[in-house]
């Protein structure tokens, strides 16, 4: 086959797979969030629509679809309509640099399982993660509603303050890996630290992992840091004036951002698509069972890598839900306190520690 056509097809296929998986996980997450909330709280949760209530998200979508599509009279229409679009596009774009496997071999072509293997992967992700503030501000400001504006102010203050500690935590890991390239990071992490324990970022620098983890909760506006919303004070916050499908877009964007943040956390701190314990054995078993050649081994490896990444991300997503239904929310001053007085200085100290450790190791 003509290599140009092959590459184009491969890229389109990768885009479709990424989009399909990400957007396909959203309804499952919505279902799990609501059903899981039930289990956490000792009640069954939504169980009427379809088996185990699995069709509940579908019912929600139909509901959103038939709602009146309404724009407030004094809103700035352009920005008002743009906000949900940015909210949805930013995390989806950021996902494109996350490697979800090493490579597969089709015929005599090698297909790398990453949409964009760019050298500045981390910068790219940070840029798009930073873009997530914009929909909050735009939505709040453009809907011309006091509650929305307050929610937007709170949201942007929160996201900006946590982005600093998040960036510093990431920076300390960059010192270890010595690269901005996500793929090389994953490869770096697959080397052995102590016997069977891989040198995952979280083992090398658990504190940075913790800070990063806490920060992504704030970044994605999830509990216990869901200050931009607040039923008792500012109603729905920045998306108060959004109804019907525009609200659904915000809703989906929240979950896409969660998926993106989890994937980033896994890639930087938990070995990315690196094998989970036991996967190597599985691979050897499969090789022996089917008598695979080199090509086959590589393809099965890629599949297992994808499964590893997916299960790690799934676990982080579970923690998102778990935390949401376990912890009460922070007050706004406590949130700022934690962000500026604890996480920020501690991650600075951690950065120095990482620098010294790296210097010592070399």
């Amino acid at each position, binding site marked *: 086959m003509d290599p140009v056509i092959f590459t184009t097809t491969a890229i389109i296929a990768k885009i479709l797979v990424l989009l399909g998986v990400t957007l396909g996980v959203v309804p499952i997450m919505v279902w799990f969030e609501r059903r899981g909330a039930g289990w*956490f709280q000792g*009640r*069954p949760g939504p169980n009427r629509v379809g088996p185990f209530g699995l069709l509940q998200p579908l019912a929600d979508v139909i509901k959103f679809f038939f709602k009146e599509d309404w724009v407030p009279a004094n809103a700035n229409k352009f920005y008002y309509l743009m906000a949900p679009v940015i909210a949805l596009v930013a995390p989806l774009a950021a996902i494109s640099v996350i490697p979800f496997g090493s490579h597969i071999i089709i015929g005599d072509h090698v297909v790398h399982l990453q949409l964009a293997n760019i050298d500045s992967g981390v910068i790219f992700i940070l840029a798009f993660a930073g873009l997530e503030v914009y929909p909050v501000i735009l939505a709040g400001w453009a809907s011309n509603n006091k509650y929305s504006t307050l929610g937007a102010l709170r949201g942007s203050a929160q996201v900006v303050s946590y982005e600093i500690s998040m960036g510093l935590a990431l920076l300390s890991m960059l010192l270890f890996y010595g690269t901005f390239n996500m793929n090389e990071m994953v490869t770096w992490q697959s080397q052995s630290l102590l016997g069977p324990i891989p040198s995952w970022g979280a083992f090398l620098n658990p504190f940075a992992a913790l800070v990063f983890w806490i920060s992504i909760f704030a970044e994605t506006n999830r509990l216990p840091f869901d200050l931009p919303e607040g039923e008792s004070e500012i109603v729905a916050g920045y998306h108060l004036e959004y109804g019907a499908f525009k609200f659904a877009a915000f809703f989906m964007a929240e979950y896409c951002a969660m998926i993106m943040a989890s994937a980033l956390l896994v890639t930087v701190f938990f070995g990315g698509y690196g094998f989970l314990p036991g996967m190597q054995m599985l691979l050897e078993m499969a090789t022996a069972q089917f008598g695979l050649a080199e090509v086959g081994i590589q393809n099965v490896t890629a599949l297992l890598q994808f499964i590893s990444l997916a299960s790690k991300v799934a676990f982080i997503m579970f923690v998102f839900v778990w935390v949401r*239904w*376990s912890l009460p929310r922070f007050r706004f001053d406590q949130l700022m306190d934690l962000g500026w007085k604890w996480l920020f200085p501690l991650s600075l100290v951690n950065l120095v520690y990482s620098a010294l450790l790296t210097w010592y190791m070399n």
Partner: protein
Amino acid sequence: MGTINVSRKYTLAQKIYLYYIIKGMLINLKRFFRGLFLQENWTIQYPEQRREYSQRFRGAHFISVDKNKTENCTACFLCETVCPAECIHIIAEERPEDENTYGVWKEKKPASFDIDLLRCCFCGFCEEACPKDAIKLSRDYEMSVATRDEAIFDLNHLKREVKGRG
């Protein structure tokens, strides 16, 4: 001025949050698995399962009737008078003689008897006031209606058969 500062002594572990957060989350994880695998629920599946309420529960009203489906009410207006919500509206008329089959002479009967359930506070005073044990409160608590008019129970509706009490 209106703020009262309650100072508490926090231990270091409490100040760092993390230990207690993890502890609390583990408790909640236990709950999660019990909900998931043991279906341990504190709620009930309402339309299929129903909670057993007290025998003295005061729900939708009814008017008791005798064997011939004649209401026991004599339109004495005691319930209308006692009702704190003023939601009972009775119009009285003379009762034809042939309706009194047992020889008990009830001279009056309600021509119309309306209770506005949207105003009623289910205090049960009407039941206590009634000399004929005519008006009673059943244990039926499912009173949702689609329009306000449906919430006004007329004589016909009040004379419905109610099981379990009467």
